[in-house]
């Protein structure tokens, strides 16, 4: 029972961690809570289901299921990245340099808009993921690890490692780190800050799309309001690990997933959503810089 909950929690935690990466990168560079990031994840989940449906109609699915899943994932990532890019250009870029309140409110506006756009076009009813990835499962002492859970955990670790290496060693990654340390200085040494910000939003949105497809296949049903609560939890994960730090987001996501699944198993399942907020408030009161974050003094 305990180990089963641990595995379920790890799976969920991986998804939170991937969404949290998008939050943490944007926060690291712009100092902005991208409230609409959860909605991008929701769009990703919807897009994967829509494209899978299209491919089934087009006959690709009967040819090869793996190919159609891969293609729909790719298209979902591309579309979500485009959404992320457009969102940044229209709703955040004109507000750069204004007070901290304006972009946050603008982000809430984008979030409400996207949620209702999906509700309007796709309907308010649940959408069902057409396939069950249940090829095999490993059973050990009453603990079962399904193939889908394995796939989610492995691919998210690969993604996180990839992102870590990307920010560590690639040229764009170095530019991102430089911008997050000091945007003005970075622009002085010839880094195109606008481009770096766009790339950050594109990568974050792409990752959110992957997380969306994962959750759609894991739970099987999605709705237009999943983005809000998942976004808050992923943000909690990012803060828990220390916002702005990429390894922190991963650790925070996994920790939050574990707390949530163990908490709903042993304390009360009804308060599942309250745990994230409770943890968030406690962390912010005790150690606002998070587990791996550096605390920064405010300059005057």
């Amino acid at each position: 029972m305990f180990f089963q909950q641990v595995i379920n929690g790890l799976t969920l935690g991986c998804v939170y961690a991937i969404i949290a990466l998008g939050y943490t990168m944007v926060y690291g560079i712009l100092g902005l809570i991208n409230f609409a990031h959860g909605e991008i994840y929701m769009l990703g989940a919807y897009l994967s289901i829509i494209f899978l449906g299209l491919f089934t109609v087009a006959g690709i699915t009967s040819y090869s299921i793996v190919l159609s899943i891969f293609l729909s994932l790719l298209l979902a990532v591309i579309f979500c990245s485009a959404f992320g890019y457009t969102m940044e250009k229209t709703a955040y870029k004109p507000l750069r340099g204004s007070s901290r309140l304006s972009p946050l409110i603008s982000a809430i506006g984008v979030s409400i808009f996207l949620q209702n756009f999906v509700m309007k076009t796709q309907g308010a009813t649940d959408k069902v993921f057409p396939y069950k990835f249940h090829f095999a499962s490993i059973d050990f002492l009453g603990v079962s690890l399904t193939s889908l859970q394995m796939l989610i955990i492995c691919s998210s670790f690969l993604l996180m490692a990839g992102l870590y290496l990307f920010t560590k060693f690639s040229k764009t990654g170095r530019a991102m780190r430089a911008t997050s340390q000091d945007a003005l200085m970075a622009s002085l040494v010839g880094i195109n800050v606008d481009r770096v910000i766009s790339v950050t939003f594109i990568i974050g949105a792409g990752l959110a799309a992957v997380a969306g497809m994962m959750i759609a296949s894991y739970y099987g049903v999605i709705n237009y309001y999943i983005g809000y609560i998942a976004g808050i939890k992923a943000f909690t994960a990012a803060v828990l690990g220390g916002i702005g730090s990429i390894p922190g987001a991963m650790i925070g996501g996994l920790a939050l997933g574990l707390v949530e699944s163990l908490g709903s198993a042993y304390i009360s399942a009804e308060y599942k959503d309250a745990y994230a907020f409770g943890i968030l408030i406690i962390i912010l009161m005790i150690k606002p810089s998070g587990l791996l974050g550096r605390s920064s003094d405010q300059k005057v």
Partner: protein
Amino acid sequence: MNALFAAFRTNPMLKGAFTGFWTGILILPFAGPRTSFMVFLVVLFCVAVLAVYKKKSFSSSRCSIFSEKYRYLLSIISSDLRIKAFLYIITASAVLFPLMLTSYYLDIFIMAGIYMLLALGLNVIVGLTGQLHLGFAGSYAIGAYTYALLNTYFGLSFWLCLPVSALSASFAGILLSMPAIRLRGDYLAIVTLGFGEITRIVLNNWDSVTRGPNGISGIAAPSVAGISLSGLRRYYYLVMALVVLAVFITKRVEQSRTGRAWMAIREDEIAASSMGINTTKYKIYAFVFGSLWAGVAGQLFAAKMQFVSPESFTFIESVFILCMVILGGLGNTYGVLIGAFIIAILPEALRGIESYRMLIVGLGLVVMMIFRPQGIIGNMKKCRY
């Protein structure tokens, strides 16, 4: 290549076509080809017209006649003396109008009054003190449930409960301000959001006391000297009297030492604290004083509906209250009243296109932040946010 890019940026038709094409492609998987094409045409038209208009006004003169006129109108509205005159007219009409309104409009106006109280309270926290609060519906819910529980379980009267509701909401405000005084900006926003959500989740799940999602029904309407105020017209006057009282008190507090300290914290917290203002104390005051009105509004809501359920106090409700404050101009007490009125009657005004209402609200927030962050009658100099 560069010439091509320049053409896309300057030629209105090309710019419109490109923006429309991009939007159409983005929404294609969701909306299908027909809607996407319509959106393409609409966006093309709007962007092209805007670009042409912008080019023209830019080449003829920096200040077009329109903006002059607009500024003149604004100066009429925002000058302090005129505001007073307006206020008298509005108060007079608020007293006289209900005598000829149907109950449908009275109902809307009562809700508008309750929202005015909420907006006044949030204005103290967000507008005057500059602390972003995204869980104001939590305080509202606490006020509503305090009255609902005290009235249905113990049969306490409206007037006895009113201070209790107000105080319990303010007490929640004190609890909330404990983490809040250590945090600033975005973190504070998230913690307050968490407060609102936790309140709702607890109300939703604490079945033995709050009856969970079913809500509490059979809440009594107030009465004065044995005369019941359950009629819409009487209730309207009760709400409006409380709004006037709230405006009077908040305006007084705003102009007091406390109010000036709040504004100093809003403008620059570090500078304020180095001028000897105890920022912790005044931030707690702001949360307590702001939440107080949420408690009053909550009780009025519960007594009007005679029913409360957690559904009425969602995050979107908090956002709506925030919208009222932003629309009216942060820190502008009279503006906030107008903002509350506009947002409260918006659902009725948009009845024909109700399903697009939230889309418009979302878009409106973004557009507002980009073009008029100071609100419709806000004053740029006074208010930095």
